């Protein structure tokens, strides 16, 4: 029902009540008047004055009769006359005095008549009170006098009569009027009552309708609750159960009559949970825990009658009634659901664990195979560098070819493992596409020529030379496609095209297409050609080698790079593979374009002092041989600890650090070297690892490493690294010794003089270092003086680093800052070691 209807009803009721009250008060007022009038009538204060007045005339006539009788009978006793006179006298006195006739007395005619009568009495009293003779003698006169006032007495009567009838008429009218008003008011009241009754009847009807609708709703609700599959329990603020539906009976194995009035927690909760829940309920009641209800579903443990426990999903709602809060609990037995979930989770965990185990196994196996293979290939490379007979040379080459093939297979497996483990990270570096493709074609041209096949490549449309992409992955994909094409084409042609285009999203992409006129692909293989371990002609493959992983890896890489790979519909003689890779246009990167060439020359010109920390002997030997062959000096350590000891003592230009080693691994050793502050604390450290996932590489750099070399190590990759650090050393900001300057000094002094001076300088330096090392031996002023002196000597030999450090300490001494001096001391010592070893190796 709307509020406006409600308001109207109320207004109607109020109107009825007010109208009724008004009618009632009017009736009450009128009733009082009627009662008063009735009482006036009843009180009859007048004692019917009309009677009294007329009695006056009657008594007068009575007296007159006595007077006439006495005149007729002279012997008569006069007492009768006297008595009648007295009676008349008393009547007139009453007319004169009676308060009820005061109104009458205001009437002039009446008053005059009364005075006349009184005059008669006044005149007659002395005669009546006189003796009998006098009275008897006066009888005639009294009679005459009486006859005279007889009219006055009549006048009294008639005036009184008319007066009284007027008054009575007025009174009657008044009463009639009051009664009329009373009737009107009564009718008004009846109408008001009738209206009120009508209104009440209407209200009653509406109430009945509403009642019916409420009953219908309640019935519907009850049906819903009763047939609900979830338990619905209602309890009051104290937890006393008020409702317990059929589903609740089934779930808890209780009957409604058992639980009504019981405490909810006693009926449904395991004993050890009760106090906790009770506390939460209490806090909710106190307003501390408003989120207890309405926070959605909770999973709780519930208990059946026989003590069986089961997981239940519970939602609690609160309603506010006149009797305070009531809680409505919706509860569902989720035993089955939980069991299924648990089983699913278990199954998933097992599957994941299996998958991880497989990946780990493959990664480990690949690593374990690659390490010895690396050694084998390295040694082969070295062996081929020695003097061999032509036959030996051929055998060694074949061994190397086989070894490289094996290495590629292992790498393929590792790539797949990484991709499937989600560890494949795609780079975005500037790449020169033309060069990449040209190099590839160069590498394949030998094979192609052997099969009398020609190779060509070109851009379709506008070329896009520089892009940001992952060159290694792209190389891998294209190599696979081109190598395959070459492999299966004899006396034919392999053409490669590149075409710059746009992706659907508006970015750039490059579409490569490798087309050959080879044997083609069997129709039944077309659909599966990108799957793992799919090979074409098994016998043929055996000849060329192939795991059947090449294209599946290509597919994985292309997908990882956001691109796509596919096979065109067969077109007569040719077979065409395409790969579409999204790219970003890039500007030419001259540095990376030239580094390789420059690196080699630099490395060969300036030999570096390199520490190789590697536990595997073969690898160690191979690396050292390769470095030596490139003109570097090498020092070896068998494990991390040995590496730390060496790095602390000696200063190396570069440290190559194997990662997985017994006793102490490469990462820990790197941290120790960086933190130890030894001679090589600042030297570049490059990790050597067979197992380098991208996130691991980041961790290496965080440990303080400067780069990562991935096994198998090639002479090229080593040259690249050594070249990088030769360059950085040559362009380093502080040179330990300016060699040009030294050479000049040497030339000026001659070999002998130079040697002598160097000896003096070294003695000076040693002395200074030892004195500075003992705190408190020298005053700040002396430190300043000595530093100045030794710095002067250092300048002669071009020992610029030493000179720089001494100046710093000199400034600190001048400022009197001993803490600073102490801090600079270790750096000075390191520089001194380098300087000394450079001047006198």
């Amino acid at each position, binding site marked *: 029902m709307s509020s406006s209807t409600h308001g109207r009803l109320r207004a109607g009721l109020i109107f009825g009540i007010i109208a009724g009250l008004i009618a009632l008060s009017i009736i009450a007022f009128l009733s009082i008047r009627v009662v008063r009038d009735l009482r006036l009538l009843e009180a*009859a204060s007048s*004692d019917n004055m009309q009677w*009294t007045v007329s009695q006056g005339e009657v008594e007068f006539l009575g007296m007159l009769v006595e007077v006439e009788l006495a005149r007729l009978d002279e012997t008569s006793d006069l007492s009768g006359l006297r008595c009648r006179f007295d009676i008349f006298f*008393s009547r007139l*006195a*009453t007319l004169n005095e009676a*308060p009820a006739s005061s109104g009458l007395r205001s009437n002039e005619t009446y008053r005059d008549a009364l005075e006349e009568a009184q005059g008669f009495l006044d005149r007659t009293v002395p005669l009546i009170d006189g003796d009998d003779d006098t009275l008897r003698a006066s009888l005639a006169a009294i009679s005459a006098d009486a006859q005279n006032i007889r009219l006055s007495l009549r006048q009294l009567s008639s005036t009184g009569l008319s007066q009284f009838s007027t008054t009575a008429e007025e009174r009657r009218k008044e009463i009639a009027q009051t009664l009329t008003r009373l009737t009107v008011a009564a009718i008004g009241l009846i109408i008001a009552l009738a209206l009120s009754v009508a209104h009440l009847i209407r209200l009653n009807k509406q109430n009945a309708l509403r009642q019916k609708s409420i009953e219908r709703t309640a019935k519907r609700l009850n049906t819903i609750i009763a047939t609900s599959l979830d338990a619905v329990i209602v309890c009051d603020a104290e937890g006393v159960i008020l409702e317990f539906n059929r589903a609740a009976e089934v779930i808890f194995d209780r009957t409604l009559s058992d639980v009504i009035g019981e405490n909810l927690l006693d009926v449904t909760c395991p004993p050890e949970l009760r106090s906790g829940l009770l506390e939460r309920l209490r806090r909710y009641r106190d307003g501390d825990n408003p989120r207890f209800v309405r926070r959605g579903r909770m999973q709780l443990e519930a208990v059946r009658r026989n003590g069986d426990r089961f997981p239940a999903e519970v939602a609690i709602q609160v309603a506010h009634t006149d009797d305070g809060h009531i809680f409505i609990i919706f509860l569902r037995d989720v035993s089955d659901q939980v069991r299924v979930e648990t089983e699913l989770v278990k199954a998933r965990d097992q599957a994941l664990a299996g998958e991880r185990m497989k990946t780990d196994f493959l990664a480990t196996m690949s690593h374990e195979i690659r390490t010895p293979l690396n050694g084998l290939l390295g040694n082969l490379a070295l062996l081929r560098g020695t003097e061999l007979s032509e036959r030996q040379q051929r055998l060694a080459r074949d061994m190397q070819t086989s070894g490289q093939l094996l290495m590629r297979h292992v790498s393929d497996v590792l790539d797949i493992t990484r991709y499937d483990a989600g560890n494949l990270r795609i780079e975005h570096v500037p790449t020169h596409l033309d060069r990449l493709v040209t190099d590839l074609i160069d590498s394949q041209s030998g094979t192609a020529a052997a099969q009398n096949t020609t190779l060509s490549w070109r851009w379709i449309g506008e070329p896009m030379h520089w892009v940001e992409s992952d060159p290694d992955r792209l190389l891998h994909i294209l190599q696979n496609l081109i190598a395959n094409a070459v492999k299966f084409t004899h006396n034919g042609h392999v053409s490669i095209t590149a075409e710059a285009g746009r992706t659907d999203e508006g970015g750039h992409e490059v579409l490569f297409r490798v087309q050959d006129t080879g044997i083609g692909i069997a129709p039944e293989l077309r659909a599966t050609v990108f799957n793992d371990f799919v090979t074409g002609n098994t016998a043929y493959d055996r000849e060329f080698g192939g795991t059947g992983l090449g294209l599946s890896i290509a597919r994985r890489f292309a997908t990882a790079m956001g691109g796509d790979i596919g096979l065109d519909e067969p077109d007569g003689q040719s077979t065409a593979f395409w790969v579409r890779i999204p790219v970003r246009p890039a500007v030419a990167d001259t540095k990376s374009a030239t580094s390789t060439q420059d690196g080699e020359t630099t490395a060969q010109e300036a030999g570096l002092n390199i520490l190789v920390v590697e536990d595997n002997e073969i690898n160690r030997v191979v690396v050292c041989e390769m470095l030596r062959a490139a003109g570097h000096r090498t020092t070896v350590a068998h494990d991390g600890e040995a590496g730390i000891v060496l790095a602390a003592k000696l200063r190396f230009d570069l440290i190559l650090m194997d990662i997985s080693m017994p006793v102490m691994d490469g990462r820990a050793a790197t941290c120790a070297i960086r933190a130890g502050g030894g001679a090589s604390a600042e030297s570049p450290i490059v990790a050597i690892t067979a197992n380098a996932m991208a996130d691991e590489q980041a961790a290496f750099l965080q440990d303080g490493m400067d780069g990562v070399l991935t096994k198998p190590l090639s002479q090229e990759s080593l040259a690249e690294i050594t070249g990088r650090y030769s360059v950085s050393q040559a362009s380093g900001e502080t040179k330990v010794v300016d060699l040009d300057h030294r050479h000049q000094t040497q030339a000026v002094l001659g070999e002998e003089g130079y040697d002598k001076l160097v000896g003096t300088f070294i003695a000076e330096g040693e002395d200074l270092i030892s004195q500075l090392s003992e705190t408190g031996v020298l005053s700040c002023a002396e430190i300043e003086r000595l530093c100045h002196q030794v710095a002067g000597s250092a300048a002669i030999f071009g020992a610029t680093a030493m000179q720089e450090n001494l100046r710093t300490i000199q400034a600190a001494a001048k400022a009197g800052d001993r803490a600073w001096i102490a801090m600079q001391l270790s750096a000075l010592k390191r520089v001194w070691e380098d300087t000394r070893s450079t001047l006198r190796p």
Partner: protein
Amino acid sequence: MIQKFWKTVVASLVGVIIATAGANATKLGKAEGAVLLTVTGAVTQANFGDAVQFDLAMLEAFDSTVIETTTNWTKGVQRFRGVSLAVLIDALGIRSGTLRAAAINDYTVEIPVTDAVKGGPIVAFELNGKPMSRRNKGPLWIIYPYDSNEAYKSELIYTRSIWQLDRIEAVH
């Protein structure tokens, strides 16, 4: 039936006791002075034939009652003294019925005996300390205490307030 029987028995017994009490009342003497009131009818004693005659002294002999009241026929508050009607009829053994009261001019009214109660009407013989003359509505006047009891302010009572009273006849 039994109840009715017992009621009858009790009423009879009460009647006997009261009758005995009336018989034992003071014997009235003869009226020595002027006779002011003559009571006839159902009286239990008489001093003049079948009637009882009262002079002023005899009336004065009763315990007198004073009523101060206004009346319809006089001006201002009046002080009446007289013998209570109840006392009077009790002395005469009148217990029920009607008193037919008559005035000198033969005006007659009927007063039910039930009117004669304590605090009810008196037969006044003195007004404002003086005997009442015939011209002043004397010598006897039945006065109800109009002012002290509203019920007495009714026309019926006014008609019963008979003045110049000289006879009462007790009728059943």
